[in-house]
């Protein structure tokens, strides 16, 4: 993916750039909002990673508002030291697609970057998702593995659907909480882990090949290959 990173802190900028490059992405990095706006409007990127507060008279929110005003719909991920809920809402209202509060784990950033950059096309709604011998039918809301129907609860269905839509990508616990449960809060303990392991038990029962993998220090990934 070609990613534009606008981050005024040199150290954070270097860290994010290096990490994204190691994950195989091309990263353009600029430190002020004006240049960022110029580049984002003039060139083609798959994703913008913006600091919320930027020098140069154009902050992250202004930048996104301007871009959206020009009909540019490149996905935007905000990085911010402002953790207040109002700040989050402001960023998303301006046209941001995701919001990550500093300090963050790089795995969390990478997972969100990949989820945003490879979002399924909206105009081609899939009715069936398939990973290896696991199939999920969105219309009949049924799950089968190797042709055998698996009894699954509605929330588990949504959890599995989210994992399968991002098959081959890391999905973090916070992302699951936000996307599957639709709440923004601190669950204190790893409640998500319990749900994932329950789902995993149902899927892998009587199978020799696990599909849902735990990615150390990051989250979960569903993939066909072991």
């Amino acid at each position, binding site marked *: 993916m070609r990613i534009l990173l606008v981050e005024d802190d040199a150290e954070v900028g270097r860290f994010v750039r290096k990490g994204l490059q190691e994950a195989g992405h091309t990263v353009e990095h600029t430190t002020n909002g004006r240049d960022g706006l110029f580049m984002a409007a003039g060139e083609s990127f798959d994703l913008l990673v913006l600091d919320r507060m930027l020098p140069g008279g154009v902050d992250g929110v202004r930048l996104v508002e301007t871009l959206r005003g020009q009909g540019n719909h490149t996905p935007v991920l905000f990085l911010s030291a402002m953790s207040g*809920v*109002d700040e989050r809402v402001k960023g998303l209202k301006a046209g941001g697609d995701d919001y990550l509060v500093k300090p963050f784990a790089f795995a969390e950033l990478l997972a969100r970057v990949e989820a945003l950059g490879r979002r399924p096309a909206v105009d081609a709604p899939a009715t069936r998702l398939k990973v290896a011998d696991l199939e999920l039918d969105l219309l009949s809301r049924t799950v089968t593995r190797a042709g055998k129907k698996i009894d699954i609860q509605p*929330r588990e269905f949504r959890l599995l659907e989210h994992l399968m839509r991002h098959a081959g990508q890391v999905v973090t616990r916070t992302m699951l909480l936000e996307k599957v449960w639709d709440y923004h809060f601190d*669950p204190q303990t790893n*409640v998500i882990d319990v749900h994932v392991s329950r789902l995993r038990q149902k899927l892998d029962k009587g199978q020799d090949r696990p599909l849902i993998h735990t990615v150390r220090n990051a989250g979960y990934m569903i993939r066909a290959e072991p």
Partner: protein
Amino acid sequence: MPHTRRRQQHPGPLWRLLSSAGFRFALLFAVVFLAAGLAFAGVLWWGTAGTLERQTDSAIRADAMALAERGRDSGLAVLAEAVEERLALDAEGLSIYLLLDPAGRRLAGNLAALPPPRPGESSWYRLSVDHDDSGPGEARLLVLDLPDGSKLAVGREVSEKQRLRDLLTEGLAWAAGAALFFALLGALLMRRALERRLTPATTTAALIAGGDLSQRVPISLHDDEFDRLGASMNAMLDRIAHLMDGVRGVSDAIAHDLRTPIARARNGLEEALLEESDDPAVLRGAIERGIADLDNVTRVFQAVLRIAEVEAGARRAAFAPLDLSLLLADAAELYGASAEARGQTLNTDWPASLPLVGDRDLLLQVVANLLDNAVKFTVPGGNITLSAQRESEWVLVRVADEGPGLSAQDRGRVGERFFRADSARTTPGSGLGLSLVRAVVQLHGGALWFEDAGGPPQRPGLAVLFQLPASPLSANALSAGALSAGA
């Protein structure tokens, strides 16, 4: 800007006096008082001295007209006779007459000659008269030109009235002086009264500016504007003090609870550096532990900030109508799995709909914190109950566990930041969960309390109850309708 500030810091005494609101009010009072006095004196003057003068003038005019008529009808000789006759009848000697024929010769009267004519002036004159007996006096004189060219002068001595007028003037002057005195006295008293009522507020403000935030404006029994001002100042100060406490809580938290994990992270990393281990796994383990410690620091920090944000009431922006039943179902589903994993049973009981207005993320956090505690403190295989019901204006939520419970003195301290009961010290947690619960419940205008869950004495269990204001029943149908329409 610094220039004007300097001028305000070192004002001259005159500037200070002029800029005093008390002085300005007092001045306004004095001016209005004096204006009233002047108006009163003016009316009095016009009604007495003015009236006397106008009466004299009209008497002179009537007399002159009557004589002129007589002269026109009957001739100068008769007129002269009439004048003489009037003079003879005038016992007090106040009348003045003079009749001159066309040639300017005196025909009758007690005046030696006409006063020198003043061109362009009216025919009224003011004369000084000398009396042998009673000194100088003053007179009003009207001179008429008769049709045949002769001149008739008619006058009255007004010395008496003049004296009366002088007396009146003197009286009014005294009165004006007294009025000025009372105006100034009134102004002074008013200013002092204002100052006296405002002094407590300014003294309190000065003490607070000096750093003593515990000061409050004393409220008198008058219940007037000043008391209301003082009361609103006090309310403001209470709020500020509350916010200051919040800030102090945050800095206490940073001082106490963040120091430990930061120190732990630092020590671990330093140790790994000093050991110079050749085993990359050891180094890696140290770094991972360091990151975990730092993540823990971030979590505590976030929780403290969140509590401060909630306590400051800054999160009301996210308030919206919601159905607590759906939220409880989500929470039960989320934590039910954790309870199940520990062999515990989560019992639930609530009506189909519990509409209220609130912040859904915060309310879920509340239920999540309580369920998390319940799961943590209940023995494996035990029961946890999450129930809710509507009680008139309130929605009452109860989370009960089969844990060790809370002693009476601990109950008072629960909700203080970082407080952890002795029995809870061994379980993981920051001691911030219930602080946040309490802050969120208060933000929603509700209340939080604790009860025994009714278990055996050695393990009574704890029931945490909180109530939130419910949406009015009439709105139930509306919001339920909106929900089903939206779904």
